């Protein structure tokens, strides 16, 4: 039942685009704060959407370690797998 990496990636892309309210090119290497200009609170808000979609809890210290979209996918996958 674990969501595949591809499903998680598409979830993250959708949530990011919704948070940005503008079309944007995304890849695993996209830097979430510096590349997309989201501030710390906006990042935490958008991560809430990922948490709800996957029914996981991503602690704030794990969010702080996330730099790129790929990091977030890996973290979400890790936490989903550990459940």
């Amino acid at each position, binding site marked *: 039942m674990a969501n595949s990496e591809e499903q998680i990636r598409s979830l993250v892309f959708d949530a990011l685009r919704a948070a940005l309210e503008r079309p944007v090119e995304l890849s695993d290497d996209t830097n979430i704060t510096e590349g997309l200009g989201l501030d710390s*609170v*906006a990042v*935490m*808000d958008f991560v809430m959407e990922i948490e709800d979609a996957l029914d996981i*809890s991503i602690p*704030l210290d794990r969010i702080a370690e996330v730099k790129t979209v790929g990091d977030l996918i890996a973290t979400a996958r890790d936490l989903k797998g550990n459940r």
Partner: protein
Amino acid sequence: MALFDKFAPLMRQFESLESTGYNPFNVSFDRVLSPTEGVIAGRRILLLGTNNYLGLTYDPDVIDAAVAATRSLGAGTTGSRVANGSYGGHRQLERHLADFYGRQHCMVFSTGYQANLGILSALAGKDDHLILDADSHASIYDGSRLGHAQVTRFRHNDPDDLDNRLRRLADTPGDKVIVVEGIYSMLGDTAPLREFVEVKRKWGAYLVVDEAHSLGVLGRTGRGLAEAAGVEDEVDFVVGTFSKSLGGIGGFCVSDMDGFDILRVASRPYMFTASLPPAVVAAVTEALNQLRHRPALRQQLMDNARRFHAGLGDLGFHVGPEASPVVSAIMPDPKTAFAFWTRLLEAGLYTNVSLPPATPKGLALLRSSVSAAHSRSQIDHALSLFADTGRELGLIPAEPVAQPEIRAAAQ
């Protein structure tokens, strides 16, 4: 310069504000004249952004207490209470606060910020969980980072979301500590505390309520939102500050939890900082006395809050959901917020600008705080300046959206 390269974007924003000559984040008062008036750049200004809710900063008895304490006990304590000893006044203030709240224990901190740092970092250990309202004040976030607990956010004022997040953590070991605020400092809205208490009970969690902006404002005796909501027995820890209603500086935590005093030697922000000076302790002790014995101040404050909140709403401004001493007008963007703020200051009115990430949902806010010390004519004068400025900037209609008598009839 390389060390500061990371601040380049922030520096650009700050410098562009400085270059206008009106930087809301770098205001300097020539003098403060009273709880409601000051002088900026040689001009007399009406103060509507100082969190001085009960106007006690110039109360003669509060000032006398501070002067007498300084004369007899000196200007400062020069040390921490743990390493260098408490003064009688520290303990007396703690007893008075515990008595006011009807609780067994109280700890006083040197700032409100440190109270959250000291309590949250010590309460939740490595294997515990802090569950924060998403709109929590920076001191709550920073206190969470200072400790070693896992930290989770829930959607602002959303008991169902809190319930959902506690469910996800149900199989994870460790205590769960929920942190909410009485009145939120950006939009002035209050927490649905009864509903939060139900969720807390369901999952066997602990509850911390930060009453920084609600002490002296809400509740029959001014203890805050927990008193107003009738759920004080279910609130395990109340945190608060002396720098708003009590007109000084410092913070506190009260609790009935057995063993509470061990935090005095476990909480680093309590241990490793100098204690409050005698003048502040004496002034806050007297201000608490005034808060307890002058309920008319609270009435006056809320009358002013309702008048200003309703007045802005009638003019067509987007304001927070309920009347409280914090009244924020939602601006379309930061640029408009700066322009609005500058025009108000030029017209003789001091307010605050609040921007993301300090604000929820990316909002740009023109934030006001009213005081019991404001006269009705000062509130009305502020409203007329908001009306003029709002119309000049095209933010509100030329005529009020609702006449006061229509609104009164609709209530």
